[in-house]
């Protein structure tokens, strides 16, 4: 772990993997000084960006970052068990008929049925957001499902499309362009401003996919 300067308002904490990101983000969010010092906390794939509130010196943020690596990542079991907030779990019903399901089966060497079994077989967890409001980068799934992004992104992906890219899975919250391999779709509404929390999935949430239809 190392920390890098990010202007005079931010501190970028670099970590070994996304599991550590989830764990460190949990620890920093739960820190008693967080409401006083932090304007925001932005998890990434290998980093956590701490943003100081106006008037707070960036140096004060260093004290919120756990000092010892071994405290961050108990690798046994799910990410950061015992360190994380009480877990929120969302079950996402998916119809696995995506346009790239056959390609994913070919790329992974699994059959289509095994792709579905692998995607539903383990819980995922939201590591970070950022592509669009309500878009969540899910990690911790079956490592056999790692596939590259499409060489040519689609200009239009429908809301609810379930995709894979690299180590991540994700669900498109609204119609948008997109380069992920699409394996299915869900009817769940990922982003709804009429709800008290518009995003169904926030960083830290556990997600379990379930095959329907």
């Amino acid at each position, binding site marked *: 772990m190392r920390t890098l300067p990010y*202007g*005079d308002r*931010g501190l*970028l904490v670099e970590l070994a993997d996304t599991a550590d990101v989830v764990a460190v983000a949990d620890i920093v969010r739960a820190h008693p000084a967080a409401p006083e010092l932090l304007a925001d906390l932005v998890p990434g794939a290998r980093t956590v960006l701490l943003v100081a509130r106006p008037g707070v010196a960036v140096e004060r943020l260093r004290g919120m970052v756990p000092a010892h690596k071994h405290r961050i990542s108990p690798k046994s079991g799910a990410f950061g068990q015992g360190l994380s907030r009480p877990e929120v779990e969302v079950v996402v019903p998916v119809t696995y008929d995506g346009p790239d399901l056959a390609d994913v089966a070919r790329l992974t060497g699994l059959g289509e049925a095994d792709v579905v079994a692998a995607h539903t077989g383990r819980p995922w967890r939201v590591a970070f*957001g950022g*592509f669009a*409001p309500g878009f969540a980068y899910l990690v911790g799934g079956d490592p056999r499902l790692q596939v590259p992004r499409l060489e040519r992104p689609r200009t239009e992906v429908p809301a609810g499309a379930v995709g894979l890219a690299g180590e991540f899975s994700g669900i498109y919250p609204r119609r948008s362009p997109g380069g992920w391999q699409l394996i299915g779709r869900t009817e769940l509404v990922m982003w709804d401003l009429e709800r008290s929390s518009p995003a169904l999935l926030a960083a830290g949430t556990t997600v379990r996919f379930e095959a329907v239809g």
Partner: protein
Amino acid sequence: MSDLVVTAVDGGPCLIEDEGRPGHAAIGVGASGAADRASYSLGNRMVGNAPGAAAVEVVLGGLEVQAAGYVTVCVTGAPTPLRVDSRAEPSGAVLTLRPGQRLRLGTPPSGLRSYVAIRGGVDVASVLGSRSHDQLAALGPAPLVPGTTLPVGHAAAGPILVDAVSPASYDREAELRVVPGPRADWFADPGQLVRDTWVVGPESNRVGLRLTGTPLAAVRDRGQLPSEGALRGAIQVPPDGLPVVFGPDHPVTGGYPVVGVIVDADIDRLAQLRPGDPLRLRWK
């Protein structure tokens, strides 16, 4: 009814903005908010509003509004020449419009964004705690069009103490301070950033200011950077080597290396740079 009704939008986009909605990165929502925070807050202070009241951010003038009652306003930021009906008025003055009067913003001689602060604030629905329009996320109140009503709210918090301030001027070339990193070591010669004079490109908006000049060369064989959190003022360099300086509606996470980050006190000045304006940077 003391509302304002938009009668013309002839310049750039006219958007409702306030202090933004920080703290929602976990659900992929950025801070947004007024691009030139100092000019925006000055306007609110001039009309006696509580901090955070929503105002109208206007790019290169061209906005005309008509008062439906007595409405008190102050225009700050880019020093647009004003007209109340046929009478000329300066930027920075507190003006009270009578019912039926029209306020028109001309083209500012320097700077880009003017703020129309309205005593009471613009009272439209807030989204995640803010009335700011976010261009990237398409969140918040819609851009103004002729016919849009701007309802005046109840954000007036005190008396009006000052009649006028001097209009701002943005004639001097901008030289902004940059903290190197976090990814300066991804570039063969990060010092080029502070040696060259950059020119603001025409594609710039609230998401980012696109700089033109000699591309920055990346160090070879670095591969791809995994997506990481971003902030306003961050200077991200895509594979074409031309820096993009993130504005208030920047993506929450980005996958290109950030060579340096402009210090917080200097980022308001970015909001006043026009396409074609030169920009110099220096290390802090």
